[in-house]
């Protein structure tokens, strides 16, 4: 799914992550700035790729600033930013998130 507008979710508080999703025209690109990049950078990027795949998110840049968030929070922030970007607030397919 292609997005047309950019959206942000999450905060820069400890244990949280801030995720920005922007449209681009050349596939999925993920960037990560994390306080635990050396230990968990690959894992977080793989998690973001899997989440994007579940959301069928294509042609977008996903910028993640991680402040030590659990996987479920990173996933939640990506999903929130995505649904904001496509302007969908209800009828979410919870069973696949």
């Amino acid at each position, binding site marked *: 799914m292609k997005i047309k507008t950019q959206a942000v*979710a*999450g*905060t820069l*508080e*400890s*244990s*949280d*992550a801030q995720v920005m999703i922007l449209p681009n025209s050349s596939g999925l690109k993920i960037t990560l700035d994390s306080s635990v990049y050396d230990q968990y950078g690959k894992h977080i990027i793989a998690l973001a790729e899997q989440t994007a795949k579940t959301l069928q998110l294509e042609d977008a840049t996903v910028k993640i600033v991680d402040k030590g*968030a*659990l*996987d*479920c*929070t990173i*996933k*939640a*922030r990506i*999903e*929130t930013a995505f*649904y*904001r970007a496509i302007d969908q*607030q*209800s*009828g*979410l397919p*919870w*069973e696949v*998130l």
Partner: protein
Amino acid sequence: MTVINRIRRSMIFLNTQRAALVKDAFVYKPDCVILDLEDAVAAGEKDSARIQLYQTLKNVDYQGVERWVRVNALDSDLINEDIRAAVAGGIDGIRLPKTETAAEIQAVAKKIEAAEKEFGKKVGSTMMMAAIESPLGIMNAYEIATADKSRMMGIALSAGDFTRTMHAKRTVAGTELFVARSQLLMAARAAGIMAFDTVYTDTDNEPGFKKELQLIKDMGFDGKSCINPKQIGVTHEVFNPTVQEIAHAEHILEAVQNSKDNGVGVLTVDGKMVDIAWVEGSQRTLKLAKAAGIYKGALV
């Protein structure tokens, strides 16, 4: 469904918008958490909190702590998606704020049932409780408590909105809440469900908090809503039966059993006259003590 046969001394509110609060609140060992989607969450973050709720329910092991969600009010345009997310995530129960009538409980029960069917959950597996926050809600407390006998676990007083709508002022003694507390408690007991008291907002005043806990425990409440982890231990300390209460309950149950065997109806235990009417309270004391892990005996 385990509606009333578990201990619920403390129910702590957690702002689901904040990842740091929901990731490991079980470490404080509350009996229940209430993951809040309502007043604690900023208007522009309702969607974010709801998705955080779902992912927390699916991925964080709360280690036996019962998980409730406070959804947005029935007249909001948020409640349907709140319920879908909570039920899909496997929530234990849904707390409806600002409840004033039995019809509201029934309307929410229908939404829950629809979500249970949509996400393949057992119909009826999601409990409900009602927060009563207005004079009308208090007047209708019994009807609310009995509005859905299979789902309703309890009713709770919410004093902030109640005192506002009563044009009352919060006092240290709680005089302005006495009738509401009493009526809510009687409704819960008549309906056979649990009763929970309102939050204590002066979090640095432990003596005042303890005094209020003792008051509501003596009145008969089952537990208290909490807003700070440091309130949990104090709440359990006050609600747990004392060593003396446990011993007295044991003496009563043993003495009543012996007297029954000997054909005696009224007897004296620890210097006080008791009869069969004392048995239920003594059993409740020992069950509570056992659930709290401070009674290992075999009388219950």
